[in-house]
């Protein structure tokens, strides 16, 4: 039995899932194919203008 969770994909959905679970105290492994997380949303100009502000 394992209580860890695997999240595949480090875009906005994967990030949010991971943070929710991690904040609950669950160990999360977040796997992202690219060198950094952020996904498509990081490429957007506005909406996600503030990488530090957002999440």
């Amino acid at each position: 039995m394992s209580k860890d969770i695997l999240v595949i994909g480090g875009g906005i959905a994967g990030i949010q899932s991971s943070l929710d679970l991690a904040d609950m105290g669950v160990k999360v492994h977040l796997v992202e194919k690219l060198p950094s997380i952020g996904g498509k949303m990081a490429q957007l100009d506005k909406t996600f203008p503030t990488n530090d502000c957002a999440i």
Partner: protein
Amino acid sequence: MPNKEENIRIGVFVCHCGSNIAGYLNMEELGAYAETLPHVAFVKRNLYTCSEGGINEIKKAIKEQNLNRVVVASCTPRTHEPLFRSSCAEAGLNPYLFEMVNIRDQCSWVHMQQRDDGTAKAKDLIRMGVAKSALLEPQQPIISDVTLRALVMGAGIAGMTSALALANRGYEVVLVEREERLGGMLNVINKLGPSMADAASFAEEKIKAVQSHKNITVFTKARVTEAQGFIGKYKVDIETESGVKKIDIGVIIVATGGRLLVPEGLYNYDGKKVITQLEAETLLKQGLDKGINNVVMIQCAGGRTKEKPYCSRICCQTAVKNAIMIKEQNPASKVSILYRDMQMYGVENEELFRDSRAKGIRYIKYDPEDPPQVKDGSVQVFHSLLGLKMDLAADLVVLSTPIVSQEGAEATSQLLRVPIDDNGFFLEGHVKLRPLDFATDGVFLAGSARFPANIREAVAQGLGAASRASIPLSKGSVVVEPIISILANEDACRGCGLCVALCPYGALEIRKTEKGRKVHVIDVACKGCGVCASTCYQHALSVNSFTDDQINAQINAFLE
């Protein structure tokens, strides 16, 4: 003015960041300069202060040099402040006696071609940081217990989903429903699009699960009349048929839903021959009258108008679903949908839309400037794509009216001190990134109380709100950084309440004390923005680590 009783000993660590800082600024000069500053007892330059070696130097210096303040001049607090703070703590120094000076992102990288000016600016920054650090005070993290019980307001599909999810996780849930029966809109709806599952049996299954769950307490014909407190510690009054129940609550989920606009005075609405989609659901549940052969549906009836400018999201899919159901019950019937834009977003809706066309449902685009006219037995419409005036026979006219905010939403908003938007829907913490949270910690949001949602969305939001709400529950306590507002001068406070009105987080309240009405900072709710401190005309409020004195010390040091 540094604390007089204390012998201030500041250690300054100047980071080269490889060549990122050292390549552009004169590091020897910076180090020598730091030594000349008041209260500075120790200065060290590091290749990388954040490396293991650099961290050990900080720890060693704190112990050997009896440092009681640490300043690191390096990259950016955005990435490295947590590391340096915890390193101070490991060496026995309160982590809030640490100050970071940004001489890379905001200095060396900006002034790569201006070595002398850049170095002079870095000196200014270090001088300011040192001046502030002398006035820093130790802080302790704020920890507050959380009552392991959730309140869910509203037992529609979103509310029931949240309640079940939390109960399955092992938390006690109090579910409050205004009506006699649980289920909300599910009780009226015929089929659930797009799978056409039976709403009644789905509702039944969920209601049973809720009622039989040992962790869920259900109050029907009940309402929440009082909710005092803050995240983790709410005292809630629930008015039920058997009197008022007083319950301690940790977190609250608002899932009070919406209601369908009744289009009095619109398109000759009479509730019989001209009805709403919700009334159509009831008709379809009972089985459509044999005599109904021609049905006309009008979209955006009372929606997307000056008064209700928003698109209610789910009326188009409801219309298409009901049109298909009419066709199923009476294949010979003619169904026309008069629309402005068919809002069949996503995969399933668009599929349903295509199916409906295949089933012979007719779509006619009308211009809001020239809306359809409902006559007795017919509807006149100008087909804006064909440029034709048409007269459609209609045994039944169904108006797709928008979902509007729930009755009592405003009262709930005042009760919980959470905002509602211009259209009366609850306003989430961030429209994009925090759709299920309120700005106020401990209160969450799901379903049509937020904005019209279909079944898939309501279930997803119900689960999502449960996830968000379970975070404080699973920790059992809330831990907050102590960089928050404080009532620094209680005598000065007159209890005027201006700060309370301006606090974006509902973190301030006026309390009666022996000295009269005074503001009280709900520390676990405060985010330390400092708006209250810069507003208070009595200068009674302050912010830890950003006091007027500390900021003034920086300004003075800069203008020296």
